[in-house]
């Protein structure tokens, strides 16, 4: 049996090596086509690489879905100051486990993506910022980087092209907020992992005060394939605005959870029912969080027609985010799950912005009290108002992320809250 679960409806571009340890070595990786893209890119001008990525329509896989080529084009075109590429491998959003798998199985794909990205934005140094808890992944990656250095793929003369690109793997200390791109830069500089006020944007003033681009692991891994095969090839999947393939991390009440690489626009219910083998124990679906814990919940009803691309999920009232699909069946206690998410954010808030620092913990404590059967109906209004005060008032959007699950659950699953408040009854068990 292959990597935990696979399906022939998948389109595997980035995840081809999942489950295949051979690709971890440089020799194995090269046999499987790694570094072809780098070779091709180095024969092009940096601007041509930016153009092809722009044309492919690739969008950032870190959550915001910002067009990658466009982001790269914001970087200054000269070499007056050092430029930096930071690969965001801090993957800590609850429900997300795609970047870790890419690094574990196919580290050279990421190294290649970083080198091409660095070349395109005229950076001579790239950093991969790894989540502190990624012990195994970091070791695999460090070994790959070492091998690539020894082979002249990284260093003073990348593949004999005369280009100098260094690559450093940096391990964080275990803070979700260091995944926010400006928090990442502060952390990389040795400061507290606190997001910075924008403007200035990273392309103007980034890490070490220099022009910087931050890209997600999955984003950079798509790049070599696009460079080798062309933008039209990438556009054969997905839609005009959401082209290409995307890794979906499915967790929760499904028979076959895991990573599935799908063309964007794939129907959500097909993913759950077909690829993932349906809900565990044949239970009924209650809710889905389609994009990681920072996005609004969808009811079972809303899931029916949901197509998994940026526009499709938005039109259903949520966000694709980093495509972490958390499936909750009828046994789920929504209040408890939302409280756990709020508690996560309260724990991870960096604490700079007052609405986030105080709001996230206040909301959590209120949810705890409701869960304990000591809530009132007023608390629901308070929750809605407090979370409204947390949206759009802070430096980064972690604060908004608290609001998304709380507001959507109070609106869509009010009955469950009321059952606890009025009768002390928990609706679910999970």
């Amino acid at each position, binding site marked *: 049996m292959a990597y935990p679960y696979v399906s022939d409806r998948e389109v595997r571009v980035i995840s081809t090596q999942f489950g295949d340890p051979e690709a971890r070595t440089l020799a194995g990786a090269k046999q499987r086509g790694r570094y072809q893209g780098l070779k091709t890119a180095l024969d092009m001008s940096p601007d041509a690489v930016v153009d092809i990525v722009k044309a492919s329509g690739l969008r950032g896989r870190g959550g915001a879905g910002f067009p990658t080529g466009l982001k790269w084009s914001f970087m200054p075109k000269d070499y007056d100051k050092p430029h930096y590429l930071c690969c965001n491998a801090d993957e800590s959003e609850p429900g997300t486990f795609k970047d870790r798998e890419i690094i574990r199985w196919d580290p050279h794909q990421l190294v290649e993506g970083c080198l091409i990205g660095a070349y395109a934005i005229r950076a001579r140094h790239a950093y991969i910022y790894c989540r502190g808890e990624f012990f195994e992944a970091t070791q695999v990656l460090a070994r790959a980087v070492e091998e690539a250095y020894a082979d002249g793929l990284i260093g003073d003369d990348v593949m004999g092209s005369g280009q100098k690109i260094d690559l450093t793997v940096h391990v964080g200390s275990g803070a979700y907020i260091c995944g926010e791109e400006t928090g990442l830069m502060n952390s990389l500089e040795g400061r507290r992992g606190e997001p910075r006020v924008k403007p200035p944007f990273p392309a103007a003033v980034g890490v070490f005060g220099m022009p910087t681009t931050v890209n997600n692991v999955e984003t950079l891994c798509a790049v070599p394939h696009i460079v080798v095969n062309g933008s039209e090839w990438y556009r054969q999947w997905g839609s005009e605005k959401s082209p290409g393939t995307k890794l979906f991390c499915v967790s929760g009440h499904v028979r076959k959870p895991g990573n599935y690489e799908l063309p964007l626009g794939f129907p959500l219910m097909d993913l759950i029912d077909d690829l993932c083998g349906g809900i565990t124990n044949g239970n009924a679906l209650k809710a889905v969080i389609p994009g990681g814990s920072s996005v609004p919940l969808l009811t079972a009803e809303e899931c029916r027609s949901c197509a998994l691309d940026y526009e499709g999920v938005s039109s259903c009232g949520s966000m694709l985010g980093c495509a972490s699909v958390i499936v909750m069946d009828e046994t789920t206690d929504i209040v408890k799950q939302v409280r756990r998410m709020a508690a996560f954010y309260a724990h991870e808030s960096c604490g700079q912005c007052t*609405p986030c620092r105080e709001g996230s*913990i206040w909301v959590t404590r209120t949810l705890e009290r409701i869960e304990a059967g000591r809530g009132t109906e007023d608390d629901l209004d308070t929750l809605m108002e407090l979370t*409204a005060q947390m949206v759009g008032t802070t430096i980064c959007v972690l604060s908004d992320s608290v609001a998304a699950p709380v507001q959507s659950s109070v609106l869509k699953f009010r009955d469950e809250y009321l059952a606890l408040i009025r009768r002390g009854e928990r609706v679910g068990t999970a």
Partner: protein
Amino acid sequence: MADHADLPETVTLTIDGQQVTVPKGTSILHAAEQAGTQVPHYCYHAGLSAPAMCRLCLVEVEKAPKLLPSCVTQVAEGQVVHTQSDKSLTMRRGVLEFYLHNHPLDCPICDQSGECKLQDYAHEEGRPHGRVREPKRVFGRDDFGGDVLFYGDRCVMCTRCVRFMNEVEQDPRLAVVERGDRSIIDTFFDEGLEGTNFHGNVVDICPVGALLSKDFLFKQRAWDLSHTDSVCPNCSQGCNIELHTRDNLVQRLRPRPNLDVNGHWMCDEGRLDYEWINRGGRLEVPLVRDGKEFHATDWKEALVGLVRELGAGPVRALVSPRLSNEDLGAARALVDQLGGGDLVYRSRRAPEELVLKGFPKLARRRDLAPNVNGADLLGMSRVGDNDGTGGLEGLASHDGIVLVVGDDLEDQPPTFGKEAALYVFLGTHSSEAASHAHFTLPLTTFAEQEGTFTNHENRVQRFWSGLPAPGAARPAWLILWALLAEHTGQTQPTRPEEAFVTVSEFGDVTYETLGKQGVIVTPPTRQEPAGAIGD
């Protein structure tokens, strides 16, 4: 092009319906100030970097998708800003509610009460009632070392204190530790603020009662204090300060902004060295010696008696660099009138300067008196050692007129002035060494009179009177000019501004032109010896 280079470009925008024109690059917060609107804020402070993290100064800017932090958002041509719109007010009410979420509301026992920005803003714009039903988190208190106590529960996490130590004192001894609502300001293990020279400023800039002065702790309520603009008397830097007084006592000193002199800051030594102003046992009436006895008398009799003795011989005078320019000018005028003579002063000198690294214009100077330059400028010369003692051998046994103004002669023996034909002692306190004085006249301190000091760069700065004079004590200039009036039969200055303009070294400068910021009268001729070691 070069012609325009120094003309600042301006931007015109509308704030709360009012048009303002400000230099390009101004923040909305400052522009609003010019339009007469104070936008509430905690983390922003004019003397520090702006992290835009307190989220209280967010304002509505037309066409912007979100409210913008006014402290870091620069004005743009044609911008329309609403600081009082529904959106802005609702947001502020919301953010303020979050500030009170964990706040202990212990105003009744908090020193900051009455001058607390959390109180002020919550009263002005906050919700009338709190909605918090959960228990508040408790941090308790900590001794941060030096003069600073930390009341963690009251902290609003504005990081002003951390940034002061990082950016201004440049001795980063405070940090935020932990994150989320567990964030707390802390020192590094046992290494607190002890041994730093400007840490008292963190108490001033803390917008709430989280950082308090040990010296001031539970001493007075803020609303009971009177504030008087003054100049620090403790070194020749001349930091602009306020005297905070009550019950005829100075209760504390606080810096007063003057970007040309001390920025927003003052040093710890200067700040905490004020008890001498409150020292009791003052001379309160003129004393005339009759054989071994001293008789209290009134000013008229004292001066008339004194004038009769002024022909007793050549005069030698000792003054003090703690006296004002007006006092020193009057002393010189008297000496000149009596045919001229030695005018000397003594002053303590510290071994080194203490420079504020992030604002190096400010240093605790080596001269530990406020008017050393004034005395030098008026042609007086320094005698004695770096402790401000000695150097009076000639004066002590002078057999003509000995005039001592403002020097307490603490190091001198009781035989001082024994040989003098006339010995006049003007001081705030009696002294052993004044036992032989024929006339002992009570002086006010700088805090009890109006006047000017000349600082280390010859900047003349005004100070005002914040305390009543004890008994019949008077400023030296008033006494000495009255004496001269009696002596010459001519009208003499009776007001400090008149006394000031008699000093020719100050040219055309008047109290009016000095204003509150002061004026540099002439480049200093005396060079401060090399500064602190290791700058």
